[in-house]
């Protein structure tokens, strides 16, 4: 807005006194936040990168030293890393797609609800308010062959060991993830939905458009920015999945995610060099995902800013 309202013919390239002092004030106001961010994010990231270039193992304090990229080589040439990358992407793609469809349905219902809007919106949000570890335990108990209720349901084998093979373990993990985070997706979509002008729907109805046509021709195109932001948030989140898998299988039956792999190297083996290399690679993967969304799909985080 400032740029637009600034006097148009500024003296050739020269910045006015006022703009300069405003800029300085802007930086000053930002400074505390920038410094805090540097302390809590840049420092640990730099430290992790430093560790990833060394052979550090807390159990062998005498050994170690700078090893260059050999930790990265060890990770990237390991079949385990690529299996876990595949597992993580598999969970991410399926969970986020299901969440998008369910989230959209729930958002539409929440938007249209006439009675008890507040109650409806609050109750939909409940799963998102439950701590992930607690939710994971609840679902694990529900699916346990001896104590859970799931195997007592009709059409389900009483003896089914859900966490005993890869496919069914993934199914339960993904279901728990979807149950937990669909409300978040729905909420983000609802925010996009409320920005659409009702007049458009009325005009379309007058022109004889059906409900399906209105959804695909008006709702979806106008919601694209909101959908992409919601997808970006959930994809980044889901790629770092840890709690649910850690509680349910600890990565057994080939359900391990990259975060669990990092945890094993760092916390269980105390091999800080190798573990940090895994963490840095996860960080890079997250950056790549964000880049694809921003550049590939044109997500605009600062909608409406001039010059973008």
């Amino acid at each position, binding site marked *: 807005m400032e740029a637009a309202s600034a006097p148009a013919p500024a003296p050739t390239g020269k910045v006015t006194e006022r703009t300069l002092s405003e800029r300085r004030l802007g930086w000053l106001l930002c400074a505390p936040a920038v410094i805090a961010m540097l302390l809590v994010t840049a420092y640990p990231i730099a430290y992790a990168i430093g560790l990833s270039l060394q052979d550090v193992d807390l159990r062998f304090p005498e050994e170690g030293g700078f090893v260059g990229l050999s930790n990265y080589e060890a990770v990237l040439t390991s079949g385990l890393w690529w299996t876990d990358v595949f597992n993580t992407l598999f969970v991410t793609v399926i969970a986020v797609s299901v969440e998008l469809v369910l989230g959209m349905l729930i958002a539409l219902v929440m938007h249209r609800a006439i009675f008890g809007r507040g109650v409806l919106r609050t109750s939909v949000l409940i799963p998102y308010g439950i701590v992930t570890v607690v939710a994971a335990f609840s679902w694990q108990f529900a699916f346990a062959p001896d104590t859970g209720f799931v195997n007592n349901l009709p059409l389900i084998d009483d003896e089914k060991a859900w966490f005993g093979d890869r496919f069914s373990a993934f199914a339960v993990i993904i279901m728990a993830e979807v149950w937990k985070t669909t409300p978040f997706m729905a909420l983000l979509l609802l925010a996009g939905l409320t920005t659409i002008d009702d007049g458009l729907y009325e005009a379309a109805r007058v022109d004889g458009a059906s409900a399906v046509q209105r959804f695909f021709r008006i709702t979806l195109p106008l919601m694209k920015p909101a959908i992409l932001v919601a997808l970006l948030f959930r994809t980044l989140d889901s790629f770092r999945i840890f709690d649910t898998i850690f509680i349910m299988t600890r990565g*057994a039956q080939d359900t391990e995610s990259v975060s669990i792999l990092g945890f094993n*190297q760092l916390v*269980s083996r105390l091999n800080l060099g190798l573990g940090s290399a895994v963490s840095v690679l996860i960080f890079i993967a997250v950056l790549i995902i964000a880049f694809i969304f921003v550049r590939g799909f044109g997500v605009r985080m600062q909608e409406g800013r001039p010059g973008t």
Partner: protein
Amino acid sequence: MALVTGCGGDDDEGAGPTTLNWFVAIQPGGTIEEVAARCSEESDGSYEVELELLPTEADQQREQLVRRLGAEDDSIDIVGMDVIWTAEFANAGWILPWSGEQAQQVTEDVFPSVIETASFEGDLYGAPFNSNTQVLFFRNDQVQEPPETWNDMIAEAVDQGGLIQVQANRYEGFVVWVNYLIESAGGEILSGPEEVSLEQEPTEEALSVIGELARSPAAPPNLSTSTEDTARLGFEAGDSTFMLNYTFAYFSAEENAPDIFENLAVGVLPQVVPNEPSTPPLGGFNLGVSAFSENPDLAFEAAACLSNADSQLTATELDGLPPTRQNLYQDQVVQDAFPGFADIIQRSIENASPRPLTPAYTDVSLAIQRALHPPSKIDPENPTPVYEELREAVEDAVNREGLL
């Protein structure tokens, strides 16, 4: 500090008891609180043991401890260490060796197998506090005598249409089973802290047992996710003939499944090779003194008291934990705690083989879990491919190479 000295009370010296922090796994029967209070009292005001109770799962206990020890936290004085952590903690320089009279005192009459778990490179690093071992639980309304060998056991279970409960989830309990089988077959996983043994013949013999069970009708449906607890629940549900488990399962059945308990009998774990005595698993805790403690002398004194014969009998009485001192097995407290099977426990611990003693134990354990899980992957007729996978994984683990 001012507050602590202020507590001294009437003494002119003004020096109250020194606080010693004991980080140890919680015991539901109250053993820890009881022995801490007794030793503090017996110290005549020289120290007061404060408790920091850790979760029941060994992995979680270790995670909390290594985080503090790695940061050289001086708030830990005495560490309750699982028998598999000694080499790791000692090599990292986190715990102090015991010496002289105190070392002798805390190992008096202790099973040699247990002393082995508390030692690293010739030094003693832990005062044995309690031991533990697995026994074979069986239904004496289905079979008269405990089976001699694994082949007999699987055949008898199939015959009875019953299950055999073991621990084969991808976790430490699976390694406990694997180590017992390999040792019982006459092999061993490591022959030194960084030397892989895993002789082919005995190791394949042991692997065949795992595959044989996993592919037989005596395998529980949740075999690949089974733990001590699911084994206990499975046995109490009534469709099992045999169960390998720690002694807690006995007390659990008594309380939760009286019908099953009526026909519950206890025996020594079966052999892998006929006529070669089995070498049951060894669990338990040793007490170490932190290298970062500000009062190591007092900490040694307190740890010696916390692990003495009286303390061990308290652990047996309140929590059913087997003592580490052989002479205590004649004591009425132990005889009462394990009615009719105290001698089976004694014999099992006597013959037990510790899991590999190496600073890289976690790596070795993870490697074994990865190579052998799920148990049904092992072809009992041809275990060689899995054997080779295991060997390679353990070698990498000992050298701390690659991801695990």
